[in-house]
């Protein structure tokens, strides 16, 4: 019996478990392979929906489904958070004390947005990174806002969904226009980066739009602390701004189980090979998505594309073949810029983001993804994604020579590129 344990039931963990169950269905049926997915929550959120909850008033319930309903036959869902991972004994211990032994382990524990890391941030700011309910607080506050300064601040990097701070500013602008009170509101955008968006080509799109919409930008602003009573936000560099409403992207760190198990870096992210997605120093352990220390966007698309590589490599191990794939760093982050226009921030490890023109087609594509997300989790849309994303993975031996996209055995597959 080959036992595969996937820790973390977010986008990457759920998708990986489903890919494995799809590809290994005969082995699972025959009793030679088992797939266990370990997760804390019964409810699985579509996290990009938080922006719509915060700035368009969507209901959090619209973006949630029950995890067991998202899983393919053959995946055993263990609803019990992982408390400890031990590479030595090849085991995962859950909070309730269950011990799961693995032959292959996939770590998909994500990143945690943690406002407590900045003094005053939890009390003085709202955010849309800690869940649907917190996003809803923003929408409720906007209903009573009579005017003043709204500050959108990036209070820590890296964070989930790199375009989301910019999108928040664009969506606020749109919200106040619709309420016919834009002239009563100053929107200020604070970022530690040298420009409104870290990647220069994307900033070439964002910066003029911010200027056109009167969104004021302050760069090189590393948030030091917030004084909720005085409604002021301070930078390490010595600048201070007043606010009437503060919406901040909290600092992130790795999951508690990674920190408690002592298998992460100083921020709790798992040291991972950026190609094979193997955890460094381990043979049969992989990590994907926000949980890794790989310098690519922390986003669902990245987790999705890495899942394909990891599922393939785990299956190769089980089948004792040398057919190993490497992820090429493909990222693809949509960003709404207002007036029903959007861009896609796309790149790979070796190709930075290129020039973009906002379009309605991209906006519709972004909006459509919210509808197909649930189906995407079971692997049934992989052929479509392969066409859309193009090359996202390479066979290890041929990485330097081939440019031909790969296709996996049956349902699940994918390819690759990177971004900032």
């Amino acid at each position, binding site marked *: 019996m080959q036992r595969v344990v996937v820790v973390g039931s977010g986008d990457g963990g759920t998708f990986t478990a489903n890919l494995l169950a799809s590809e290994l269905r005969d082995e699972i049926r025959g009793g030679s392979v088992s797939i266990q997915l370990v997760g804390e929550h019964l409810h699985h959120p579509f996290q990009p929906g938080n922006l719509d909850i915060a700035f368009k008033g969507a209901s959090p319930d619209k973006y949630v489904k029950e995890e067991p309903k998202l899983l393919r036959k053959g995946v055993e869902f263990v609803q019990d958070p992982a408390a400890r991972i031990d590479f030595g004994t090849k085991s995962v211990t859950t909070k309730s004390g269950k011990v799961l032994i693995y032959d292959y382990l996939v770590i998909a524990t994500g990143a945690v947005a943690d406002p407590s890391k900045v003094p005053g941030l939890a009390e003085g700011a709202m955010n849309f990174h800690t869940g649907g309910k917190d996003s809803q607080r923003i929408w409720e506050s906007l209903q009573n806002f009579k005017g003043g300064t709204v500050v959108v601040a990036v209070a820590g*990097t*890296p964070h989930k969904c790199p375009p989301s701070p910019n999108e928040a500013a664009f969506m606020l602008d749109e919200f106040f226009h619709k309420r016919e009170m834009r002239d009563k509101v100053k929107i200020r955008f604070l970022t*530690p*980066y*040298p420009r409104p968006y*870290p*990647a*220069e080509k994307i900033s070439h799109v964002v910066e003029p739009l911010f200027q056109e919409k009167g969104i004021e930008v302050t*760069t*090189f602003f*590393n948030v*030091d602390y917030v004084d909720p009573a005085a409604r002021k936000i*301070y*930078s*390490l*560099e*010595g600048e201070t701004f007043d606010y009437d409403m503060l919406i901040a992207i909290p600092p992130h760190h790795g999951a508690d189980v990674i920190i408690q198990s002592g298998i992460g870096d100083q921020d709790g992210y798992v040291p991972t090979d950026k190609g094979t997605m193997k955890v460094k120093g381990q043979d049969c352990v992989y990590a994907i998505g926000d949980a890794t220390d790989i*310098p690519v966007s922390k986003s669902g698309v990245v987790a999705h594309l890495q899942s394909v590589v990891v599922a393939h490599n785990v299956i190769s191990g089980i089948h004792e073949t040398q057919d190993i794939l490497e992820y090429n760093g493909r990222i693809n982050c949509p960003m709404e810029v207002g007036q029903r226009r959007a861009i896609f921030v796309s790149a790979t490890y070796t190709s*930075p983001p290129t020039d973009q023109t906002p379009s309605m087609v991209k906006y519709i594509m972004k909006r459509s993804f919210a509808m197909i997300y649930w189906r995407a989790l079971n692997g049934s849309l992989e052929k479509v994604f392969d066409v859309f994303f193009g090359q996202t993975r390479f066979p290890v031996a041929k990485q330097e020579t081939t440019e031909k996209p790969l296709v996996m055995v049956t349902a699940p597959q994918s390819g690759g590129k990177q971004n*900032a």
Partner: protein
Amino acid sequence: MSTVEQHKVIDSRGSFCPGPITDLFKAYRSAQLGDIIELLATDPAAKADVTAWTQKSGNELLDIVDEQGYIRILIKVTKKRS
């Protein structure tokens, strides 16, 4: 209170924008006045980004050296809210 100045080397080689500047900020966050931060980067954009940051923040750019295949940037922390 001890105020021994530290020299911290940050290796961001192989990381592209915003990797090096993000690594610098992480070091800056834990640094004290007088500390030296040595940033190693292969991303050519690091030169302009770090220069712009020191100019705006008031920290001191000591040197930028083109080494074999990478850039070495030396910064002295002279401005930081205490």
